[in-house]
């Protein structure tokens, strides 16, 4: 399976702190994406990083990709209570027309 696996499964931090979530996958990819899900809602796309990119920024988000280690990390800087959600990585594996999602990290930001 090319499914991503996130760690940690759950993370609790104080507002203002940084949150780092990691994702590992098993096969070669074209790109890796991160999504956010608020409880009981649909997933919202955050950022896409291509296999030939190593780092990407979007606002308070920073994503890194290490294809040699088949891993990615999502860093949220200066977290806010509103960042409380589940975060999923998803991999697009070559010729397939699908994204395979990881197990997710539940982030709780305490005010």
């Amino acid at each position: 399976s090319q499914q991503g696996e996130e760690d940690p499964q759950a993370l609790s931090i104080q507002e203002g702190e940084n949150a780092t979530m990691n994702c590992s996958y098993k096969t070669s990819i074209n790109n890796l994406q991160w999504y956010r899900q608020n409880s009981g809602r649909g997933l919202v796309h955050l950022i896409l990083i291509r296999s030939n990119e190593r780092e990407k920024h979007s606002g308070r988000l920073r994503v890194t990709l290490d294809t040699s280690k088949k891993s990615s990390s999502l860093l949220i800087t200066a977290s806010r209570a509103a960042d409380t959600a589940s975060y999923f990585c998803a991999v697009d594996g070559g010729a397939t027309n699908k994204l395979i999602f990881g197990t997710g990290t539940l982030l709780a930001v305490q005010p």
Partner: protein
Amino acid sequence: EPEVTQTPSHQVTQMGQEVILRCVPISNHLYFYWYRQILGQKVEFLVSFYNNEISEKSEIFDDQFSVERPDGSNFTLKIRSTKLEDSAMYFCASSERQEGKLFFGSGTQLSVL
């Protein structure tokens, strides 16, 4: 901002009954997907659809499942004879291009009793 809409938001059905979950993807998108999520756990791929045919399907997407784009705007998922284990949140998604980002609907919570 354009969005993917799904109806109904909740569906309760008896085991063995047929259900149809409906989705209206974003109008200029060409790729369509169904995913499901059981009890806030992992998001599982069911099927992808492009050019009026299934591109790929998972092991979950057995003969009880079918998808259709009947009129150029709606995208439906039918489960012919529901089982208890089909209870889940079903998400529709669309994208403008292959390998692009997915836009998800808010989901249909299916409860099979």
